[in-house]
């Protein structure tokens, strides 16, 4: 299914540092994700690994709208958001490698990037699991500040398939009922794993799914970085100033399978061809050169710089130490209590006295 892309804003290429920075980020995300796929195949990365390939414009546009004071909850497809939020590629790659220098100390992996400094409050591996906590984070904000243009807000990302689960609806209801400063962003790439949106959602216009909670919904072209940025900005402004939750749907394409191990056989050859032609990174690059915002040399330098940063990230991750098994229980509890079970699989449950006293 091809989702109609209606946008409230038509972006204009305005020359200047903004565009260069957006392209730099898109190029970095692209280089990082392609390298992550390679590192997965080289078995440097374990577990699941979901890539933002094809969503670079959406990622950059959303992160351009989010202020440093805001909080971000994301899905398990979040490497790009971590980078666009300002994290260095090294600690992100190191997390994928399971190293101590990873953003989550090697304990989370690809799906669970977290960084308190940049207020990235987690990638979440359970579909929709992030939505109630994100809503609660917005609730917490209502206790510590007044609404206004400089108020903090929460952005909660979710996929198109997530709009069918109960947590989504319960959370939207709470957010509207309690007037919470939160923007839910449905990153609609057309497929929940392999299932198209119109085969899983009875209301496939996902931005309308907030209607029953009286939440304003909007859909934007996810390949249009400026449109995404501006729509997100508008929603965030309402959330900050009026404490009204918003629902934004971005529509883009997932260039590859659901995860690095998905060959995406459910797509025809023609469809794959078509998607490649729509590649947002290539499209933005071509357009910026065509409109003389960047010249070819500058664009190539940006791409080379991105490659170099990713090279350095891989080198950093490779050189970083593996976690010591002795640190296994380091974060078992935030508040230490007696009798916390710190036993390894073959350890005895309790120390046993040798003989009767």
């Amino acid at each position, binding site marked *: 299914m091809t989702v109609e892309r209606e946008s409230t804003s038509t972006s204009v290429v305005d020359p200047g540092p903004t565009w260069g920075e957006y392209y730099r980020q898109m190029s970095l995300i692209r280089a990082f994700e392609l390298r992550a796929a390679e590192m997965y195949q080289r078995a440097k990365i374990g577990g699941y690994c979901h890539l933002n390939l094809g969503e670079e414009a959406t990622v950059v546009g959303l992160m351009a709208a989010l202020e440093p004071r805001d909080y971000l909850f994301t899905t398990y497809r979040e490497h790009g958001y971590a980078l666009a939020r300002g994290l260095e590629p090294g600690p992100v790659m190191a997390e994928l490698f399971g190293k101590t220098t990873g953003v*989550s100390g090697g304990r989370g992996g690809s799906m669970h990037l977290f960084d308190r400094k940049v207020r990235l409050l987690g990638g979440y591996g359970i579909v929709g*699991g992030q939505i*109630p906590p994100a809503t609660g984070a917005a609730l*917490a904000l209502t*206790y510590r500040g007044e609404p206004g243009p400089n108020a903090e807000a929460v952005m909660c990302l979710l996929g198109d398939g997530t709009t069918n689960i109960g947590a989504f609806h319960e959370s939207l209801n709470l957010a509207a009922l309690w007037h919470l400063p939160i923007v839910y962003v449905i990153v609609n790439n057309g497929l929940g794993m392999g299932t198209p949106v119109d085969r899983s959602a009875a209301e496939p216009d996902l931005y309308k799914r907030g209607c029953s909670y009286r939440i304003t919904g909007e859909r934007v072209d996810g390949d249009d970085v400026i449109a995404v940025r501006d729509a997100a900005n508008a929603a965030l402004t309402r959330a900050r100033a009026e404490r009204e939750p918003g629902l934004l749907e971005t529509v883009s394409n997932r260039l590859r399978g659901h995860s690095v191990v998905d060959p995406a056989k459910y797509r025809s050859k023609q469809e794959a061809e078509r998607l490649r032609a729509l590649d947002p990174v290539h499209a933005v690059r071509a357009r910026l050169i065509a409109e003389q915002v960047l010249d070819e040399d500058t664009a190539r330098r940006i791409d080379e710089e991105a490659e170099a940063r990713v090279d350095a990230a891989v080198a950093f991750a490779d050189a970083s130490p593996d976690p010591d098994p002795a640190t296994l229980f380091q974060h078992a509890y*935030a508040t230490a*209590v*007696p009798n916390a079970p710190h036993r390894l699989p073959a350890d005895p*449950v309790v120390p046993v006295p040798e003989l009767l006293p």
Partner: protein
Amino acid sequence: MTVMTYRQALHDTLRAELQRDESVILLGEEIGVFEGSYKITAGLLTEFGPARVRDTPIAEEGFVGAAIGAAMLGMRPVVEIMTINFSLLAIDQLVNHAAKMHAMFGGQVSVPLVIRTPGGGGQQLAATHSQNLEVWYAHVPGMKVVAPATPADAKALLTAAIRDDDPVLFLENLALYNTKGEVPDTEQLGRIGSAAVVRPGRDLTVVSYSRGVVIALEVANQLERDGVSIEVVDLRSLRPLDRETVCASVRKSSRAVVLEDDWLSFGVGAEIAATVQEGAFDYLDAPVRRVAAAEIPLPYAKPLERAALPSAADLIRVIGELLDATRFTHAEGGS
């Protein structure tokens, strides 16, 4: 010391913590205007206002998850889930999220959340409203599960739970709310993760928690008149579990019975029995016995319900069998 009900102890503790710490908020169904299904939160809405005593829609996954998110940002939400049966609607949030975040995110965030919820049967509430699901949570690393049996422990452990930075499931019991006991007037900070020998004895150890402790004490007092000295261990905390206190008691008495309101299979009794066989094997004079609920969805009809739930008579019977199996004589003692 003041003699008060378990309900009053909970109420007073919530009130004291709301007064002490602005980050403490209460969430739950019917806790405000309705004053709580079991009236634990009576009067608190009036005193602290709707922002801090927040009625929620019937949406356990939503409001429990929201409490988790608020806790991540430094609030100290105390959530009332009307009965533990309904916690299953929120179990993804508790097990997959609250319990994981601190460790999974490398210690960068904690979830100072309390889930208060009563379990237990015996009120003719039938199959879906009479369960004991605390072991589901006690199974999960990252959770803390406490189950006070007395008003004093209710106060001390609720205070500790609210001030703890990890998610704590605070198990209450419908049959305990009206029980009375002495409660210290001063602030009490309980120790999560430690059991207590609530009644010392020589001949046999009964291990229990929550309502089971009340039954165990009643039985112990009764059997004392018959010359049997029962030691009662109140686990108080299911996660962490204080295995050493249990083993130390059994090493002394050589006989152990676990009393649990829950179904037998995979339960607290199973865990205790396994612990005892490892930690007190050479001290056991007979296998550990378990007194636990019949494994059937609990029927509504009173005679069926009564038959299914463990009672004082059941405990007495099993204690008797265990004493017989070990040729207990009243002359025993001292060793």
